[in-house]
């Protein structure tokens, strides 16, 4: 059942992503990407990351993509001409992106068992359940503290430093955006 749902949304994600890449206008590209993000959010739920899925919908699809839309409309790029490159570039794209996909698609073959085997190096002892105890602990934690708590705890404890850095990052981005985009400084 889970698998079937997964593949449905996976197909959705691929289809919408393809449309995003191939759509004629910037506006539709942004919209298609939003659709992809929503599909991904569904997949996140399937993969046991409910909170991330929520954030994906709220922040990513909801805020960031709106920002994109806003800019697209600001620049009024709704004209019908396509910005697709010519056939040569098309061919190059197919070759390059295809090769890249082939190389990266090798990851398809990963199952938890294989990963465990590779990490533990001794197949007979590679019990994914014991090796990946951290995953199980998180799931238990989610049951105990709720999905937010399970993520929040490490975020503010272990990942305090990166968290603070993100604040600097955002500050930088704000200052930068203001400096660049303001009509008059």
């Amino acid at each position: 059942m889970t698998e079937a749902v997964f593949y449905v949304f996976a197909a959705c994600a691929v289809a919408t992503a393809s449309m995003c890449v191939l759509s004629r206008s910037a506006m539709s590209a942004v919209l298609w990407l939003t659709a992809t993000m929503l599909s991904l959010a569904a997949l996140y739920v399937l993969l046991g990351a409910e909170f991330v899925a929520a954030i994906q919908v709220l922040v990513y699809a909801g805020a960031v993509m709106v920002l994109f839309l806003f800019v697209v409309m600001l620049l009024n790029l709704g004209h019908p001409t396509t910005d697709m490159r010519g056939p040569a570039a098309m061919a190059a794209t197919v070759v390059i992106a295809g090769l890249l996909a082939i190389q990266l698609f090798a990851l398809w073959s990963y199952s938890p068992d294989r990963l465990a085997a590779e990490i533990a190096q001794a197949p007979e002892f590679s019990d994914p359940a014991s090796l990946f105890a951290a995953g199980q602990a998180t799931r238990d934690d989610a049951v105990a503290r709720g999905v937010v708590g399970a993520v929040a705890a490490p975020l503010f404890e272990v990942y305090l430093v990166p968290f603070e850095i993100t604040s600097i990052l955002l500050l930088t981005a704000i200052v930068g955006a203001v400096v660049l985009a303001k009509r008059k400084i």
Partner: protein
Amino acid sequence: MIASQWVWLAVAFPLAGFLVNGALALRRAPATTAVSIVGPGVLLAAFAVSLGIFFGLLRDPPHQPHMVPLWSWMPVGSLDVTLAFQVDQLSTVMLLVVTGVGSLIHLFSVGYMREDPGYARYFAYLNLFVVFMLVLVLGSNLPTLFIGWEGVGLCSYLLIGFWFSEKANADAGKKAFIMNRIGDFGVLAAMFLLWRELGTLEFADIAARAPAGLAPGGAIVTLITLFLFLGCTGKSAQIPLYTWLPDAMAGPTPVSALIHAATMVTAGVYLVARTNVLFAMAPLSSALVAGVGAVTALFAATIALRQYDIKKVLAYSTVSQLGYMFLGVGSAAFAGGIFHLVTHAFFKALLFLGAGSVIHAMHHAYHATHSHEDAQDMRNMGGLRQHMPVTFWLMTIATLAIAGIPPFSGFFSKDEILASAFARGAEMPVYYVFYAFGLAAALLTAFYMARLIAMTFLGDNRSGAEERRHLYEAPWIMTGPLLVLGILSVIGGVINLPVFAGGHHALEGWLEPVTAAGAAFARVELPHGSTELALVGGAVLVGAVGLLLGYRATLTRKTPPAREAPADTGLALVLNRKYYVDEIYDAAVVRPLVWLSRVVLWKGVDQGLIDGAAVNGSARVSRGFGWLGSRLQTGQVGVYVVFFLVGALWILRAMIR
């Protein structure tokens, strides 16, 4: 008597003369008187020293040469080249010839060159020449000899190009130097071989070590002697390096007499005699020496037949006579070669100086009438006997001497050489051929000398009516030396009178200690009795016939003056143009070499290949690649991404094994 230790004085005097005259030459104001005193004076002083040494030696003939070391020149490990003089019988003979004949020629020059603007320079060069010539003959080892050997070449170069404003003269000087250098290459190579094989370059040590250290008749000694002989062909103008000598007549005539007849050109003969042990050990080389000498003697004599320039005739005659000397030393008659060297110095110097005297007179005559005729062309002369009798008679004596008419000096020396060659024929029949060549050359010698005398002094005067009144005998300062040389040409033979003439080969005996080492390997047993007399008779006959023929051939036909003369044709032209050897050398060696250097090596290899293709080419290729890279940088982000991804694909590919 002056002891041998003072031999350096003989060198020091001319050296001082060179310095003084050189300093005077650099002054703007001419110092004719001072030069006239210093120039010949130092030579006379040197001659006095030489005489002293000679008499010292005469009183007490040494078995070992007296060594006079000056200073250590190139001490490197076991090689210790010392600048040293060696006084022995051979070097003393040469010393006397050089300083003696040199003195006479210096004196003659005072008259001959007095009016030249380069008078001081001339004497400086001449003095320097004597210095080097003495170093050459006195040097106790090959490197010291080589200083002199090259030094005389240098002075010859400077004196040939003395009137350097004429390109032909400067060319001739350069040609002489370079041809000599080719020969010097041989001497150097011989030195290297000797050093490797015997570990010494001292003449005395060579003579002592060679018999044990080298295989007689072996390849190495043959090679050494061949290299040495290459040097001799250069210096003594033998085939194939003879062409510079006729050109060298571009120098002042006394120079021709001193350097290109009496002394320098005989250095090759001296060298062979000095290293006689090596040549005696190498019969093949000796045969080659004799052969080259014989061929040169005949070959040069044929050219001399059709020359009109009086000095050119004498020049080819010199080449020819040098050939005789080599025939002699090549026949193991080392003393005989030296004998002819000495007598030749007398009569050839006399001939040249006489010619100088003639040219001097002709030149003055033409100068007086502002004529631009050639003062050296015999076709413009004729009948000079009336105007310059002293010169005529003295030159006639010399002609008889060179033609081998007894009892003049040349008769004895030439006869001894021919006899030696004939004698060697018993061992190596090829020497009979050489003998025949020598005899033929003797005939031709007599012929062209008679022609010279006849054209110059006899018959009608062709110089022109106006000029005729300006023809005078030379002043005493010039005729005086001529007279002395004339006497020597007559009596020179006494130093080595053969037995049949009542002598006992004095020179040969005198040189015995020097030639002994060689004599151990090759000794000439001169024919005795009837054979000897037959040979002598034949030679004399040949000489006489030649003279007669030459005289008649010249005087029976009318000789037109140079400007009216018809162009030579046929064989005469070939002879007149010296068999076109110069042209052949030019076309076969000089031009190809210059072409090779300029077109192939310089423009092709240097500028084209190395600089163009490799050096600038690599720079250009680099810039080309850079330009290409720059073009790829189109400014289009798409292109950048493509390159980025190509790199990414490569890295990921490397990661998936």
